[in-house]
């Protein structure tokens, strides 16, 4: 089996006196779907952003596909990595097609190839092709995030980083989009690291949960394993929360 896609070695990051990351080490294998979970201020977003260079760590080393990210020009690194975040950040002055094709155009793809890619991606994320000429402001929140996912996938990255990607959507849209993305992950053979504060989402989508607290990894494993043998009571409480919720829901619906 190939080496890990992502390797973090004793990565630290401080903001003033506050340690957002305090010596984190982590390896992610190709094809894994990892959810980074933890409360706010636990360091999960900071960790994610060290991977594509949006945050430069002040200790340790981050390697992507074996390459130390500190030695790569950040824009080259990011063109190889898909990035999706809660606010989506579609460029309001560009059409949907231009938004999706932005990384291909930075990479110098020819027009025909980029146009074909836009159509394929719209199909992939279940959007009608007609939206290609629309402006971002004309789309619903769920449609915008589908465009966000399509834009991240445009240059055919093998690695996707997602920062609470579905956090701002209504529950139905969120559920549908999460499930759709999980299928894409399988179909395209992606490696995905997703930050979320929603345990149910993490458990439903990811193969592996990495739990952070105060800049440390406090638990790491598959949902089932963690529930079985996590020693830390807080981690157990965190993991049991969705199960308790599911049970209560079942009781109330009288199933």
């Amino acid at each position, binding site marked *: 089996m190939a080496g890990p896609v992502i390797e973090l070695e004793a990565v630290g990051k401080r903001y003033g006196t506050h340690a957002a990351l305090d010596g984190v080490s982590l390896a992610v294998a190709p094809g894994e779907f990892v959810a980074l979970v933890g409360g706010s201020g636990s360091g999960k977003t900071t960790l994610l952003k060290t991977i594509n260079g949006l945050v430069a760590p002040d200790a340790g080393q981050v390697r992507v596909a074996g390459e130390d990210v500190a030695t790569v020009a950040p824009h080259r690194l990011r063109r190889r990595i898909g990035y999706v975040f809660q606010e989506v950040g*579609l460029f309001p002055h560009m059409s949907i097609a231009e938004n999706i094709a932005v990384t291909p155009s930075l990479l110098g793809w020819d027009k025909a190839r980029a146009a074909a890619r836009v159509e394929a991606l719209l199909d992939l994320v279940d959007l009608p092709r007609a939206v290609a000429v629309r402006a971002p402001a004309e789309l619903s929140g769920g449609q915008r995030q589908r465009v966000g996912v399509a834009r991240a996938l445009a240059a055919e990255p093998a690695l996707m980083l997602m920062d609470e990607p579905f956090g701002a959507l209504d529950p139905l849209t969120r559920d549908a989009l999460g499930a759709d993305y999980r299928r894409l992950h399988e179909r395209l053979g992606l490696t995905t690291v997703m930050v979320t504060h929603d345990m149910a989402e993490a458990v439903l989508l990811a193969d592996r949960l990495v739990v952070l607290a105060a800049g440390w990894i406090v638990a790491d494993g598959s949902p089932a394993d963690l529930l079985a043998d996590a020693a830390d009571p807080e981690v157990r409480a965190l993991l049991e929360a969705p199960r308790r919720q599911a049970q209560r829901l079942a009781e109330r619906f009288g199933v």
Partner: protein
Amino acid sequence: MSPRLAAAVERLPEYLAWHVLLSAAALMLGVAISLPLAVAAARNARLRWPVLAAAGLVQTIPSLALLALFFPLLLALSTLSEAVVGRGFSALGFLPSLLALTLYSMLPVLRNGVAGVEGVDSAIREAADGVGMTSRQKLLRVELPLAAPVIMAGVRTAAVWTIGAATLSTPVGQTSLGNYIFAGLQTENWVFVLFGCAASAALALVADQLLGLVETGLRRRRRALVWTGAAGLVLGVALALLPLMGFGRPATYVVGAKNFSEQYILAELMADRLERQGARATLKEDLGSAVAYRALAAGELDVYVDYSGTLWTNVLGRTDNPGRQAVLDQLTAELARRDGVRVLGSLGFENAYAFAMRADRAKALGIGSIDDLARQAPRLTLGSDLEFLSRPEWKAVEAAYGLRFRSATTYQPTFMYRALAGGEADVISAFSSDGRIAADRLVTLTDPRGAIPPYDAVVLVSPKRRDDPALIAALEPLIGKIPVEAMRAANYSVDRDAGKLTPAEAARRLETDLGL
């Protein structure tokens, strides 16, 4: 159409062309400088404060002063460049106006540029980083396009300011729509003043509307609007500049004039005579007193009329009064030696400071000279123009005659004559060639002690034209040929309230009357 309106319309193509050229060039230069500065300031907090503060400071300098400041600065630079590379440049006219207006146009573009770039949503910046844009690509593809409407709003403000302030470039020798306003103010030709204001306001409005079209187009992402606005601007500028294709050929002679009627008339007279010799001549009017002599010495004017006493005190720094002919002789020798300037000769009249009284009142009080005046002064009121009481001439008269008035009031010249007519002032500080002396039946008092220096109107020729045969042939016949009565009548025909002549008409009439 009234003749004054017709005269205004006739000048419009030339004035408008220069005004548009100056404003458009200053605006483009201002935007070209302030846009990169704004981007740098938006990205670097340490740069932001000094840049915006400096631009704000420029804005607090009165625009007329800013224009005036560039003249001595450029003159010094030109002298330096002449010494170093053997070639100077014109410190008068277009260059100082362009530089001052460029500075003036920068603040709104800078402010809006910084605000526009900073105002881009942080999520959009993060997305730009996330998709792999370099810092430069982020600026060009995301930040600037999104800031464009805000920047355009700044450009609109700058355009309106620049077009308005460009009217002030007239006193530094740049033709603009301000020529109407400055000339109109001096000759009390309100048609000119209003015409100049209206033309400049209309120009500002049109530019604002076209730039507004571009701004709206950028805001609504409607390319057609952007192109319509831009095409309108380009077309408008091109059309306005059309007349300059003809004026563009360098004039053979540049005739200067300070900012009052007598100067306009004499400049028109000299230009007219040069053109009848087959030469081309252009006027640079409304020059400041100090600007005019320096511009002549630097060769930017070829010829203008100044007054011996002014040159004596201001250029040579003398305070004595050796007599009319001696002043003229020494001036001729000194200006030639110092600056290479040729004093072609006196036109034959003086425009001196003189004490003037109503004839009936002078007769009743038995006053004919300043000596007589000094005896009765403690019971009389002096009306003077705004600067007379602070000038060396007044100090000299005061000391020589022991003049002590009951009270003294300063007036704008028009109102000074009205005050004398109405009896609010008993005696005023007049100019001896002022047409109103004859029209209001005033007498000027003699100066038996010679305290007031002579103010012979003299024709000055620049160093490079000092032996120019065409110029000498055209202007030499004027020397000694204009009596003060003729000049007064000509001045009055321009200054009076009813049946005004333009300075050009007055010049032609003067020539005919004197048979020149």
